[in-house]
């Protein structure tokens, strides 16, 4: 069945939904025929695999390396080469029994479905997974963003019937400035407070490397200091061909001498005893949450930088429109507003309220040290 027909049928179904329930849809594929929700996460029965499962399963397709999506202990893992590498760096080489490299854009049959990985623009290696059954295409986006990021491939919109999206920043208050503007604030503050250490809290995977790269692109060429737990992933980015300039691991004994320097650390360490030994440290955080003042204040952040690896509200809406889907599943985040908006656009939307996503927890980051 061609996509156009599906669209027409789906539309007419929603038109008649009040008077003509189930029997009308018999014979047409819908999202729930391809994906079901289980306690372990999103499952595809026709291919017998999970996408980003939260507990160990037989076969997992993993969108990206953040710890809430990529967990250790699955029997088989299929992901892009960088994502497999990142899992290796974080969990050790025994994180799975069998690895399968997903090549971007290459269709692979698994059971009755055909799957294809496409770049998601979230972090290095991040991908969306398109799943097709009988001409009906579902795209599970994983986490994604549309803004420019020098450390990963840009998001590639894939036409689909059904789009499974995140909504971490799914409220219209979230509109993010570009990362350069925000990084300039850090450099301006450094010029104003040349004796104080700027402690920049950023996720160890993705955000940290992006911030470093953006600073380098702005001409900042002094060494950038790293909390010990960030070194291995930054090294990996370097091996993957992303030049981060001179990076130095913070020697705890030398913290008192790092006045005027930029030090990157996981957000959880910002308020730790570890952070106390720097000269008059300024707490900086790079996150989409920094858009809301109360959130920044609760975290004790003194210089909030609004930089996110997730899509902001305009990007979420634009993406949903662009992929042309008629059904929308919202996995996690601020689902209510996006579902409401999609409804106004005539798209059938459903919040999944998946627990466990969007919690790339600080503890997990520290474990990765």
């Amino acid at each position, binding site marked *: 069945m061609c996509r156009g027909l599906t669209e027409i049928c789906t539309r007419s179904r929603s038109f008649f939904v009040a008077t003509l329930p189930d029997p009308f849809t018999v014979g047409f594929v819908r999202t729930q025929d391809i994906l079901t929700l289980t306690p372990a996460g999103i499952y595809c029965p026709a291919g017998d695999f999970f996408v980003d499962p939260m507990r160990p399963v037989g076969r997992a397709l993993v969108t990206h390396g953040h710890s809430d999506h990529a967990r250790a202990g699955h029997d088989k893992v299929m992901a892009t080469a960088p994502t497999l590498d990142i899992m290796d760096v974080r969990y050790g080489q025994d994180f799975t029994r069998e690895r399968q490299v997903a090549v971007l854009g290459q269709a692979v049959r698994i059971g009755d479905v055909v799957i294809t990985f496409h770049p998601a623009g979230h972090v290095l290696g991040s991908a969306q997974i398109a799943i097709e059954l009988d001409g009906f295409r579902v795209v599970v986006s994983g986490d994604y963003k549309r803004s420019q990021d020098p450390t990963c491939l840009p998001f590639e919109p894939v036409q689909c019937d059904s789009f499974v999206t995140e909504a971490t920043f799914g409220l*219209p*208050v979230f509109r993010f400035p570009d990362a350069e503007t925000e990084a300039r604030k850090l450099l301006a503050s450094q010029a*104003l407070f040349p004796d104080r250490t700027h402690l920049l809290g950023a996720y160890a995977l993705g955000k940290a490397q992006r911030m470093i790269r953006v600073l380098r692109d702005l001409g900042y060429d002094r060494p950038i200091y790293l909390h010990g737990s960030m070194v291995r992933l930054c090294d990996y980015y370097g091996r993957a061909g992303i030049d981060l300039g001179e990076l130095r691991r913070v020697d705890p004994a030398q913290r008192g001498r790092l006045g005027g320097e930029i030090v990157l650390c996981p957000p959880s360490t910002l*308020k730790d005893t570890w952070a106390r030994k720097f000269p008059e440290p300024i707490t900086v955080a790079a996150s989409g949450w920094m858009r*809301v*003042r109360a959130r920044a204040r609760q975290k004790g952040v003194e210089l909030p930088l609004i930089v996110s690896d997730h899509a902001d509200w305009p990007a979420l809406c634009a993406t949903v429109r662009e992929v042309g889907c008629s059904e929308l599943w919202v996995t996690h985040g601020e689902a209510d*507003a996006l579902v*409401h908006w999609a409804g106004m656009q005539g798209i059938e939307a459903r919040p999944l309220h998946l627990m466990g996503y969007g919690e790339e927890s600080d503890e997990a980051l520290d474990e990765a040290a």
Partner: protein
Amino acid sequence: MKAFAQLLDRLSFEPSRNGKLRLMADFFRRTPDPERGYALAALTDTLKFQHAKPALVRALLEERVDPVLFNLSYHYVGDLSETAALLWPAAAHPGEPPLLSEVVMTLATTSRAAFPRQLTLWLDTLDEIGRWALLKLITGSLRIGVSARLAKTAVAILGGHEPNEIEDVWHGLVIPYGQLFAWMDGTGPRPASVDPAPYRPAMLAHPLEERDVASLDPKDFSAEWKWDGIRVQAVAGHDADGRRIAKLHSRAGEDISAAFPDLIESLRDPRFGDSALDGELLIMREGRVQSFGTLQQRLNRKTVSVKAMADYPAHLRAYDLLAESGEDLRSLPFTERRERLEALVDRLHDPRVDLSPIVAFDSWEQLAEFRADPVQAGAGPDADAIEGLMLKRRESAYVPGRPKGLWFKWKRNPFNVDAVLMYAQRGHGKRASFYSDYTFGVWRGTPEAQELVPVGKAYSGFTDEELTRLDRYVRNNTTSRFGPVREVEHTTEKGLVLEIAFEGLNRSTRHKSGLAMRFPRVNRIRWDKPTGEADRIEVLESLLNSPNER
């Protein structure tokens, strides 16, 4: 507006005083006139215009944003100005954002009817931070933790001057302060102080430490009671038209005259002359000084009713004279100023104004006895309103600020209560990573069903080592978290007892316990004491009923 918005944004997150000064000084240095002048006016809260109502902001937004999305957003953000700033749709052709001067001058002249359209135009041209700052400014709620004094201090830094020099000329200045900045830049003279009744920055005392006593000679010092009121400066003079002007300033230089017309009338008396008097504002009924709680009935009010004046008559107890008949006395020794003060109060002969008596003493031991028992030392019925003693070096000039070694305050022993730690919150600045703000409670209810009721919050009184240990205790005994607040285990069996010292107790309808403590701090950490043996609320309530039993 853009630079000013960024300054406000940065200030709103900056916890340290020095950091704030740096940010403001940098802004004043880089921003041209008159923009920096209007910014200074905004920071010192001297701009006068009709504030916009939140309802207007809301109405403008509802025309532009889907109501469901607006409500979801507002609940998430929790602040109307900020929600509006973030939700305002980007304009197709935004145009140039306004200058702060433009905003201020337009606000002063725009009619109520034309205002919504004007506001819309501005919001269309600004970005998120600009819109937030504009909405905060026009709704009259900056709340960025900057006092007028701090903003003036930042200006002083600009020209390498003392903040008090700015205070001296402040009342003669007009927005946008071109004269002031020219003086700071070294391109203009010091502006003349034309305030006929100016505030003069107050001289403050250091707490007397045990170790000070040994090194100080009692003969060098004069002692007075320390009164439990508020410090004020009463000033009178003549304006350019020869009219008599009298003002009452708070310790921080705020003009509080409007709330005390009864006292102002006394100061207008020609016998007071063009003088400036330093003293304590008290409530006096039937010749007796009333408690601080009573005085509070007249504090923090813009105006006062005839009834309140009759029920709570204001009184000034004088202890220093800074100027007399236009002559600045501040460089004279305390003893000379005191003589002239005594003569002035005698001449004035007003029951509303009297002298703070000198407490004669020969030795520190004797003074310690007086401090312990003011009644025996001749304080009479006013002993209730005595907080302790003030010691002033006889030779001391009146030095603004808190100079070392000249004035000391020697407070009476505070009240103590054993309370249980209930919640902890992280501190600010240097303590940002430590749980250093402690909410504590005492027991209430029958012994079988007793519960802890919070009675106060303490931020100080412990050493750095003790703080480290308290911090660790909080982290290891957290039972739940509410945003930045940690609940710490507090049952009859488990928990930590803090001995809290405080200066006094007032009734309060704001607190669950019905009590409000004055200046509570941690006196000792009772690692040894079981929580079940902490004090009960009745102990505090009894203090409330007889406020002078210590």
